[in-house]
Each structure stands twice: as C-alpha cells, then as structure tokens.
C-alpha cells in the first residue's frame, strides 16, 4: 500500500515489477491516496507526504501480532518477517503452550513456559542459539 493511485500501481507492476517477479505481483497493491489509512496505522510521514515503511502481521482474528516501521531509505528484511510469521503461527497452533526464544526458526527448540522452567531456562537454551542458523 502506498499513496500512489491504482493506475500508477498498474504501470509499476506491468513495466518494472513484472520483470523482477514472474507473473507480476501476486497480491493486491493498494492505494491510500489521501494517507488516511497510513495515519490510522501511525506510519504516515507528514513531512514527506508519503507512507513510511510500515509492516503489520495480522492474525486470523484480526489482531495485530507485530509491526515494524522504517524510514524510507532502508529496506526491510523479508526473511525476518517470514520468520516472525512462522513463529506466531507456531505459537498459535500450540494454543500458547509453547514460546519461541530469540533466534528461533522452524525446527529449532521452543520453550514450554511453566513453573518448572522458572530459573531453568539456562538448562534448555544457550545464548549462542540466538545467533545460530
């Protein structure tokens, strides 16, 4: 979503993005010409008159699970976005019985919060695991 019109979205997709992504952008490219939605989400850049780079993970109940906002010159890391999405999906599937520690990726160890884990995280999880692939 940006402040561009749907006509500009079409031109950008058809003339440039489709050369980067086979078949063009698969998801809807939305127009927020007035910036109303950007303001509603707290990411409209009033000085520049554009949206900052806001990214929101919304769960199936419509609840915002996480967000990230960057100023325009720095691009996002989509691997991290996907990792967070996978982590939220995992936690939801476990109905909150498991939590994903720092650096978690699918296949890595999760933690099961409870009385026995208090003070014992060091036995289950080491700092280096936050940095491992």
């Amino acid at each position, binding site marked *: *979503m*940006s*402040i*561009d*019109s*749907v*006509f*500009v*979205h*079409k031109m*950008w*997709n058809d003339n*440039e993005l489709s050369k980067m992504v086979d*078949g*063009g*952008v*698969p*998801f*809807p*490219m*939305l*127009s*927020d*010409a*007035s910036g*109303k*939605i*950007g*303001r*509603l*989400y*707290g990411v409209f*850049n009033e000085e520049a008159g*554009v*949206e*900052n*780079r*806001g*990214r*929101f*993970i*919304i*769960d*199936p*109940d*419509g*609840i*915002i*699970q*996480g*967000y990230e906002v960057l100023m*325009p*010159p*720095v*691009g*996002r890391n989509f691997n991290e*976005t996907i990792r967070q*999405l996978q982590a*939220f*999906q995992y936690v939801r599937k476990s109905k909150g019985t498991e939590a994903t520690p720092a650096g978690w990726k699918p296949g890595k160890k999760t933690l099961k919060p409870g009385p026995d884990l208090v003070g014992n995280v060091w036995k289950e999880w080491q700092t280096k695991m936050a940095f491992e692939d």
Partner: protein
Amino acid sequence: MTEEMAVGCTRPGGGPVDETQNLTDKPETDPNTTPKEIKQMIQVGHKAPDFSAPGYQQGKFIDVKLSNYFGKWVLLCLYPGDFTFV
C-alpha cells in the same frame, strides 16, 4: 473476497471503514485532549483497524476490505511510493 471495481477519471483512495476510527480528522471538541493524544496509535494485541482501499491485482482493479481477509494471516506492508528505489 474482493470485488472488481469500475474505474473513472477520479483518483480513488482508501480510508477507514469506520470513520470514527480516523480520529485525526475530527475537530478537537475536547479542550483537554492535545492533538498528539488524538492521534491513534497501533498496539500489538489489539484489533487491526478496518479499512477499504482500491487496489490493482493481476490485471484487475479491485476493492479490498481488510476485514474480508480475517480468518487468514495478513501481512500489511506500506511503502513510500511506486518507482522509488528501495
């Protein structure tokens, strides 16, 4: 989920579904509320404010309402502008 949209010469833009959500546009009737407090902030764990917006997808102009996607995981991304570089 989405409806194809008729396009005219206007430049349609999106907006909140419930206009009361867009508190920034409201006149300041409460003198105790400063403009900064009026500005609604997004919080994790809270409902994503609903909106509808025109869109382009795979050759079609469509109308998209966020709440029509509830039931699925949604990744909502905003960015400064088309044809910018990053």
